[in-house]
């Protein structure tokens, strides 16, 4: 089994190596090879899963210690992996969804001459993500953490010839780096405090509490910073919208289903630390609540379907972070929502991809409309995903999201009410913007003229089977996953040993909450239908009131970054360059100049007249004599 663990990572890594170094020889086999290796790792994951299931609930863990990475004095970092229920869940999600998206990409990228690289990068991403979730210590986790960052950088900027893509990729990497500072500092802090940074070493309540709450809070906060970076949480969320520059499968896999959820994983994994640091937890829930509203609001304003979905992703992850911040009452549901979200959000993105595929990469929803009859499969799968995400009773989202809302209320006190309220409100907005997308895309009259009709746009058509199939699978997942997990709270019992769990007591009864959610959901849907279903959708975004405009501009947060960090930073850097040239180097050149000037002044003494030479000698003699006498006098 231990060797399987290594193999699980090795498979996609091998794929990446072969595809990226292989050169043109592997061009033809690239898509198949990449998908096959992804599938292989999924199979391996399944085998490991069954193996875990075979073990007693308490001892469900597999360790494999590959080699010592760095060893200096008492500092020892191993390349070692640890598989438990939590990481298992992620492995299945990553490899499963990953495989599907590989397959989807076979169709989606069929006409791109750089396919080979694309699949290479995708495999690289799988490997990095697996390292991230399987690492048994924070340093190795950091490796995976930056590895997925690299993969996301490469894939966002996959179409490098588009300056926008290149910029977006750079932005994503940089913002993530800011978060990485947090993770790095966390590792330093752990080592200086505990002398180790392995999960087994640190993650015991006793160990953490031994360091005192101050240290725990500090750790919690830096970890939260890291999570914010990777999971696009306020204030480090700005990169996710631009990340949509990447090919849509990438958005589905990396920027919806898996990588962006790494922050949730980190917090859940570090539960022991957060449990010991209420302050940090408070910070976490605040970030989560703010982001879930922020993302939702942005999602409402975007006309670019992918950006709208990105906003929704942000908001859904906000839910997860919120849940994770709630502590033992939330962890399980955070992960559960994470998984179900993985299904339906991936499905939604693939749907969007399928539409763009049909419409030659047109992303403006105002130029869609009435696609349901042109693309029935896409419509169906997308619709199911849609129902799932808005929490339509019985579908995945319903179960996972409700639990989170409950838990939020269960937090108790005003906090509980505020958080719960935010969560409920979020649910309503979700319903609104998702319905908006749905309506603008599939219903109403087509708001474009096909070439046949003398227009520019091509006739929309259903995507090939190789693309439809994954969408169907994901749709199935989005429908049933939630229910399957909740039945007899399987998921709870599965994860409990790792995350721990405690039932919270919500001041509001479950029934009432459910009802409220459903009502709000219906409200949102209704509003959206009223706005976009009933009346004609203008082909160009109307100039609307300032809150909408603000929302379109990501609530001004990008403008702020640009003004402060980009422009301000540039000005500062230029100033520094000036200082370097004029100040530091100037000082040096100043000394040189002084010597030169002194030289040309002194050489004037040598005026060529014997008598003045003689005079200087005479003066010198007098001086020397005087000095000698003076010396004796004193």
């Amino acid at each position, binding site marked *: 089994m231990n060797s399987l663990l290594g193999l699980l990572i090795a498979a996609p890594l091998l794929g990446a190596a072969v595809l990226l170094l292989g050169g043109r020889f592997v061009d033809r086999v690239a898509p198949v090879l990449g998908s096959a290796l992804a599938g292989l790792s999924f199979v391996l994951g399944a085998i490991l899963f069954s193996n875990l299931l075979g073990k007693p609930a308490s001892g469900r863990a597999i360790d494999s210690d590959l080699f010592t990475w760095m060893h200096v004095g008492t500092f020892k970092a191993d390349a070692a992996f640890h598989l438990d229920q939590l990481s298992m869940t992620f492995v299945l999600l990553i490899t499963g969804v990953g495989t599907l998206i590989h397959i989807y990409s076979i169709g989606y990228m069929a006409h791109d001459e750089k396919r080979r690289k694309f699949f290479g990068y995708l495999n690289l991403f799988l490997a990095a993500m697996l390292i991230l979730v399987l690492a048994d210590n924070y340093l190795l986790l950091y490796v995976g953490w930056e590895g997925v960052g690299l993969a996301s950088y490469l894939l966002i900027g996959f179409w490098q010839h588009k300056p926008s893509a290149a910029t977006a990729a750079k932005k994503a990497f940089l913002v993530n780096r800011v978060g990485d500072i947090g993770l790095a500092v966390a590792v330093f802090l752990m080592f200086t405090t505990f002398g180790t940074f392995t999960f087994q070493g640190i993650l015991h309540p006793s160990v953490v509490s031994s360091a005192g709450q101050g240290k725990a809070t500090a750790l919690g906060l830096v970890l939260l910073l890291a999570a914010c970076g990777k999971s696009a949480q306020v204030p480090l969320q700005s990169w996710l919208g631009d990340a949509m520059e990447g090919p849509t499968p990438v958005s589905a896999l990396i920027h919806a289903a898996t990588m962006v959820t790494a922050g949730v994983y980190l917090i859940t994994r570090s539960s022991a630390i957060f449990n010991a640091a209420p302050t940090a937890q408070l910070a976490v829930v605040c970030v989560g609540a703010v982001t879930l509203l922020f993302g939702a609001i942005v999602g409402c304003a975007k006309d670019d379907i992918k950006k709208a979905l990105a906003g929704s992703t942000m908001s859904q992850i906000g839910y997860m972070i919120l849940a994770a911040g709630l502590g033992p009452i939330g962890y399980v549901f955070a992960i559960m929502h994470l998984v179900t979200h993985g299904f339906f959000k991936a499905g939604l993105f693939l749907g969007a991809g399928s539409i763009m595929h049909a419409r030659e990469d047109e992303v403006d929803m105002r130029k869609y409309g009435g696609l349901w009859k042109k693309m029935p499969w896409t419509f169906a799968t997308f619709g199911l995903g849609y129902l799932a995400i808005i929490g339509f009773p019985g579908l995945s989202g319903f179960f996972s999201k409700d639990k989170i809302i409950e838990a939020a209320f269960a937090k108790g006190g005003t906090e509980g009410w505020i958080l719960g309220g935010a969560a409920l409100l979020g649910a309503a907005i979700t319903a609104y913007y998702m319905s908006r997308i749905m309506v603008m895309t599939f219903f109403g009259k087509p708001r474009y003229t096909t070439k046949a009709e003398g227009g520019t746009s091509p006739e929309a058509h259903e995507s090939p089977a190789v693309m439809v199939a994954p969408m169907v699978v994901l749709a199935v997942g989005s429908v049933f996953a939630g229910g399957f997990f909740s039945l007899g709270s399987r998921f709870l019992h599965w994860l409990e040993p790792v995350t721990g769990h405690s039932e919270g007591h919500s001041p509001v009864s479950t029934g009432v909450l459910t009802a409220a959610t459903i009502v709000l959901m219906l409200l949102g849907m209704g509003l959206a239908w009223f706005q976009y279903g009933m009346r004609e959708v203008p082909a160009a975004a109307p100039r609307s009131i300032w809150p909408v405009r603000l929302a379109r501009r990501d609530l001004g947060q990008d403008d702020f970054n640009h003004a402060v960090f980009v422009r301000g930073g540039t000005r500062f850097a230029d100033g520094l360059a000036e200082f370097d040239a004029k100040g530091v180097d100037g000082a040096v050149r100043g000394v040189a100049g002084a010597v030169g000037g002194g030289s040309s002044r002194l*050489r*004037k003494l*040598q*005026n*060529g*007249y*014997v*008598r003045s030479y*003689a*005079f200087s000698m*005479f003066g010198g003699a007098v001086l020397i004599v005087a000095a000698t006498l003076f010396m004796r006098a004193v």
Partner: protein
Amino acid sequence: MNPVNYVYLAALLFTIGAAGVLIRRNAIVVFMCVELMLNACNLAFVTFARMHGGLDGQIVAFFTMVVAAAEVVVGLAIIVSVFRTRHSASVDDANLMKL
């Protein structure tokens, strides 16, 4: 009288000679001023010899005269040749090299 006065005289002569070197332009005169300084030295030597009641100072004086003579030979040779080239014996004209 007190021989120390001769020392003062010598010092005076020496100073006059030095001043001449610094002031006068004509190379010959400058050179003569140097000779004056040398003679001042001689006077000093002789005086001190007298005060010490030894002969060394007087002997030095003889040596000095010889040296002075030698200097005259060399000096005049140089000065004359320069004079013939430049038709001027002014030391201030000889300042092609400066700075």
